[in-house]
């Protein structure tokens, strides 16, 4: 393991973007990072709110119409290597909101997330459990370490 992967394994900066889910996943992820019970920092995962600093983007929610472009802009602002974790069933497949008009394409929901930006890991659950979020972020490690 070179110094590149070694250092990447020891500092992962995570940015959160909420794209209009029900708040359940958002709170659980904040809980993961901020609560001393789960304490993501002990796994070398740090919270940041600046896309220029981030390595991993955690996205929740079904990507509502107003959120689509901000999400894409934030994704573009992150320097390579970057990876996206879609957390929660809304981010994975649009959740209960996706079929708002049945078979007619929805105007409100632009999701799921992988139709907007490329997704590297998917964390299922409604709402996601904090342990699963941590596992999802950590499961990206091999990809992140091997990236240029």
């Amino acid at each position: 393991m070179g110094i590149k992967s070694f250092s990447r394994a020891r500092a992962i900066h995570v940015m959160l973007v909420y794209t209009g889910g029900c708040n359940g996943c958002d709170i659980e992820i904040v809980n993961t990072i901020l609560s001393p019970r789960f304490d993501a920092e002990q796994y070398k995962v740090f919270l940041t709110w600046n896309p220029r600093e981030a390595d991993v983007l955690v996205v929740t929610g079904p990507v509502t119409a107003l959120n689509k472009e901000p999400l894409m802009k934030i994704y573009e602002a992150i320097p390579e290597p970057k990876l996206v974790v879609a957390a929660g069933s809304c981010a994975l497949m649009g959740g209960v909101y996706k079929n708002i008009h049945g078979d007619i394409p929805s105007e409100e929901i632009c999701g799921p997330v992988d139709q907007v930006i490329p997704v590297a890991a998917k964390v299922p659950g409604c709402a996601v459990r904090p342990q699963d979020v941590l596992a999802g972020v950590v499961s990206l490690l091999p990809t992140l370490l091997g990236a240029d």
Partner: protein
Amino acid sequence: MDEKLPRSEVIETEIPLGPVHPAALEPYRVRLFVEDEIVQEAEITIGVNHRGVERIMEGLPVEKANALTEKICGICSNAHVWNSVRTAEMALDIEIPERASYIRIIMGELERLHSHFLYLAHGCETLAHETFSMRLFYLRETIMELLAMIGGNRVQYGCGIIGGVRPRCELDDAKIARIRTDLDAVETKLADFADRFTSDTIVMSRITGTGVLPQKQALKLAVTGPTLRATGVANDVRVDMPEYEPFDFNIITQEGGDVKANLLIRVLESFESIKIIRQALDNLPEGPIVDRTWEMVDSEPVHSYIEVPRGILYHSYGLEDGKVRSCVIRTPSMANIGAMQYAAIGNHVTDAQLCIVQCDPCFTCTDRAIEIIRRD
């Protein structure tokens, strides 16, 4: 108290924040109009969360619609289910077993506890006081585990169904004993925290007089919930609800309507909630927890008001062939947006997000029926 008024003539520049921002737990846009770092006017734009839940509910079988209301909001999920099944029960004229009603109240009050702890932790985080925030998140974790134990999930427990509560939410002796011990621990720790918090002069000087919402203005804006009670108005729908009749609790009010009053009222209300849960556990009646002997009939739209952690929640729908018709949901944050915009006036820009957070925003609840403003 001097009336704060938006002073548009002195506005120097506009600072837009959001929809992704560290101080916001959910996406919303806020435009702050400032003059020398003092906010003169604030405009909150919601609609970022619009998913059209009422539109999906329309025409769904009422049981499915109840399950869907849970997905309106991840913080007050139980409140939405409770009010939705309550509406259906009013429409179908169902009398639920007493034990079920008690269990619903236990869940509702536990949810109020976790919502208030989240509010306090988020408030401290917005103050950039990481230590207090972490301690509160730690306290909240105990409540979350209790909820997960009863409902089987940490966020959406699906407790209420038409006619009672779901059988998995039945409370046996082991569960009751655990709730009691955990609540004792939470109460002691919360009392410690309240002591520590109110005696911290630096924090107190920071939050006293910040984000003031005068009582007159609060009434004018039709603010609800703890935000209204923090201005000195004793308004709580729980006293009018037949479910809460057997319980003895106080309506907490505070004076001032500033961040301090808002934070303290949540702490004191948490103690009241613990009191209600204890009474419910003590007097928990025996008997069935669900009544399945009801029949589906058509009904005119009926409505139901309950008190949720953020204020008054209104659900209304009619039934037709077992399907939901003319669904309207009004959440407390809808009324409180005016308070948020008003409270931010006259404060420093760093406090602007704090003033919004002090009204306990839950825009995911609120964004449903509002038309998205589209660009041309």
